[in-house]
């Protein structure tokens, strides 16, 4: 039961930070959805709001950590160029591209994942900022609240695409 350093950081990136972001989404969405004056009593709004502020900021931080660690710690191992005669299974990008029936995992899957993932922290941070700045006023402003729900959902979908392809690619060409 040991992990190499590379496997450890891949787990932190995908299974700890990324997966926690995705799992927390439903809670955040429910919080935003139900924060409306006609559903919650005056004393109930601040109680829900504290959880929503904490939740959205934690998610924004998780999203940033996920993309930064993914891009600057894990990705260099994925895309490293192998020396001549090297075992390509230690170089995932080259391994995928060298196999015609696997190449699309890089050309489509990884190429999309590495870019689209960065939309998630930008959108999640905008949501977290507005929740903190507007507080209880959000319960009375349907337009802003609905906009946040849409941005939050797009952040989730972007992270979901990245997470899904990350899981598949790490299955086909794991980082050891």
């Amino acid at each position, binding site marked *: 039961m040991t992990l190499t350093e590379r496997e450890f950081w891949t787990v932190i990136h995908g299974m700890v930070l990324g997966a926690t972001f995705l799992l927390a989404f439903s809670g955040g969405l429910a919080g935003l959805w139900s924060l409306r004056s006609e559903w919650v009593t005056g004393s109930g709004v601040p109680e829900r709001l504290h959880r929503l502020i904490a939740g959205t900021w934690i998610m924004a931080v998780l999203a940033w950590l996920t*993309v930064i660690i993914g*891009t*600057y710690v894990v*990705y*260099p191992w994925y*895309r*490293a160029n192998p020396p001549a005669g090297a075992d390509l299974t230690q170089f995932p990008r080259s391994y995928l591209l060298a196999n015609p029936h696997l190449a699309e995992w890089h*050309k*489509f899957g990884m*190429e*999309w994942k*590495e*870019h*689209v993932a*960065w*939309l998630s922290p*930008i*959108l999640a*941070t*905008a949501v977290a*900022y*507005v929740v903190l*700045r*507007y*507080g*209880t*006023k959000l319960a009375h*402003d349907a*337009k*802003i609240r609905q*906009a946040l729900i*849409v*941005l939050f959902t*797009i952040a989730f979908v*972007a992270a979901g695409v990245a997470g899904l392809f990350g899981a598949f690619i790490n299955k086909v060409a794991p980082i050891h």
Partner: protein
Amino acid sequence: MAQKENLTNGPAASAVLASGVGSLALGLFTTMAEANAAIKNALNLYNPVGPLSGKTTVAVVIWLVAWAAFHGLWKNEQVNFTKLFTATLIMIALGLLGTFPLFYDLFSG
């Protein structure tokens, strides 16, 4: 609390619209890097990561600058939120398109 009671929708619109600008910038630089080798090389800020380092750094900087600029303009203003949110969604859609490999491969040099 009194401060929040008087809060206009300008700060929210600024944050929301800037997120669209950042998304659009990411899509735009992703596609531009594919279309032009000189841009791709210029975006290679950190060799182990390659051009992805530049695309994402530039997008984040543009996002933050746009946010600061919009906030400066609208921090005390009541703006047309629906119109700005529609613009945001269009920019996010274009950003998503620009980061989609089947789209940016059309411009591959």
